[in-house]
């Protein structure tokens, strides 16, 4: 609880909140864009969800949150306050991830759900909530892992999202299968079949609840790697 409380109180200063809330506002605007598109609502929303919500808003917002909960603390040299304690590495990692996920659950998830409502696809509301919740959990776990395994974690995170997931994931099914972006999209595709989700279906990747299970696996693996890595970390500030 102490680690979780610290994450919520100390890791997200005011500037970070702006970095979280602006993409969320963008999500609602994406939803509104659907209503002015010159095509059917469901078709337009499928496009907006793929390119805007799952492809841009969710990864960017989760990057801001995921980087804040551990990597930024490490860069600032304040992670030592947590590291120099008898608390196990697993507790630290899970506490930080959980704090980040809670922030995502009250920002990204409502924003994406609101975008679905604004777009005029209320039948996809639950599917979007599940997809955003599971996708943000996996993304934040991934960014926590990058925070403890790389020095310039924000740069690595951007590279993973835009080069790895968007560019390579588009072409290679193997990458899409371990990508939070693609798997979150497939959660929506599988659960919101009637709400135009079928338009987002990608062959060769699990959909619906199977995609949720895949995202859960990503969370477990990345958190396990983060825990292992924390034991080999030099948790000092930028002065080293």
């Amino acid at each position, binding site marked *: *609880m*102490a*680690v979780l*409380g*610290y994450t919520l*109180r*100390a890791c*997200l*200063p005011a500037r970070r909140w702006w970095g979280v809330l602006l993409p969320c506002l963008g999500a609602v605007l994406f939803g509104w864009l659907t209503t002015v598109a010159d095509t059917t609502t469901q078709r337009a929303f499928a496009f907006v969800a793929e390119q805007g919500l799952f492809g841009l808003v969710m990864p960017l917002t989760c990057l801001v949150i995921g980087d804040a909960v551990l990597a930024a*603390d490490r860069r*600032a*040299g*304040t992670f*030592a*306050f*947590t*590291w*120099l*304690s*008898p*608390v*196990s*590495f697993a507790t630290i990692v899970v506490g930080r991830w959980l704090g980040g996920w809670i922030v995502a659950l009250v920002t990204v998830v409502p924003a994406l759900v609101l975008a679905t409502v604004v777009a005029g696809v209320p039948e996809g509301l639950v599917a979007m909530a599940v997809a955003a919740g599971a996708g943000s959990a996996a993304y934040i776990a991934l960014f926590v892992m990058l925070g403890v395994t790389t020095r310039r974690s924000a740069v690595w995170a951007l590279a993973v999202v835009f080069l790895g997931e968007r560019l390579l994931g588009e072409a290679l099914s193997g990458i899409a299968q371990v990508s939070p972006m693609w798997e979150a999209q497939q959660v929506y595709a599988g659960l919101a079949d009637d709400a135009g989700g079928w338009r987002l279906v990608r062959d060769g990747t699990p959909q619906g609840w199977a995609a949720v299970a895949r995202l859960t696996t990503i969370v477990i693996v990345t958190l396990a790697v983060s825990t292992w890595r924390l*034991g*080999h970390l*030099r*948790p*000092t*500030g930028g*002065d*080293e």
Partner: protein
Amino acid sequence: MWFGHKVALTELSCSFGPGVTGLLGPNGAGKTTLMRAITGLLPLNDGIVRVLGRDPHRDRDVQRAVALVPEDEAVPPALTARRLVRYTAALHRVDDATLPERCLAAVGLTDVADRKVGGFSKGMRQRAKIAAALVTRPQVLVLDEPLNGADPVQRVALIDLFHALGDQGHTVIVSSHVLHEVERLASRQIVVIRGRLAAAGEHHAIRDGLAERPRSVMVRTPQARALAARLVGLDVVRGVTVDGHSLVVSSLRAGELAELLPRAARDAGARLVEVRPLDDSLESVFRELLQ
């Protein structure tokens, strides 16, 4: 211990026991690296660090007994001093609810405990970190330049606090570049120069160990020139510098000089007003070790 191609610590073997120990060395000597290694914050590339017989980097349980006050000003800016102290108390499962308040009081931060540490001055940040370390009730307290930014009154209070901890049987390790403060803080010093152990022990003993280097004694007398003329003839004297009514005598055999000086003064008809060793201070010991 190395970072890339830079060797930070090498051939360094030392131990710390109950009481206050000063850690001395010029900038870049390896003091901070040594302190971080002691607390487990940095793993060693080669060698062993043991705290209470265990590896502080691998054994998380050791962290119950160790606390570090780092030199850098990094503090979680969004937290108040009270929240910071309570956070470290919660991490260490401190069940005494009054302890955080007592620790804040011990460093004089009670009045500003609800202000965010991001807005604190350097000295106040240091004190907030000291309170956060004290609340864990550490057996081994490692303080990297803890008096930085503190005003004179706070310095005295903090030095008294460290002495009290040392007297209670805690192992307190303090680094500082303000040598006269280390002299007041710790009777035992460890000197690190260029990543190596230069000296260890009580500072007078370190000074005595530098027997091959001349020691200087300042003598004040109205008959300075006459006494100087007499002293330069003695075997034990390596040199004499006269400045008005005082002279500085350099000797390799300070003990013999102490016996011969009154006799030389009597022979020269000089009245001794003051005789004082110039290089018995920690600063001079440190300067000599550096050379």
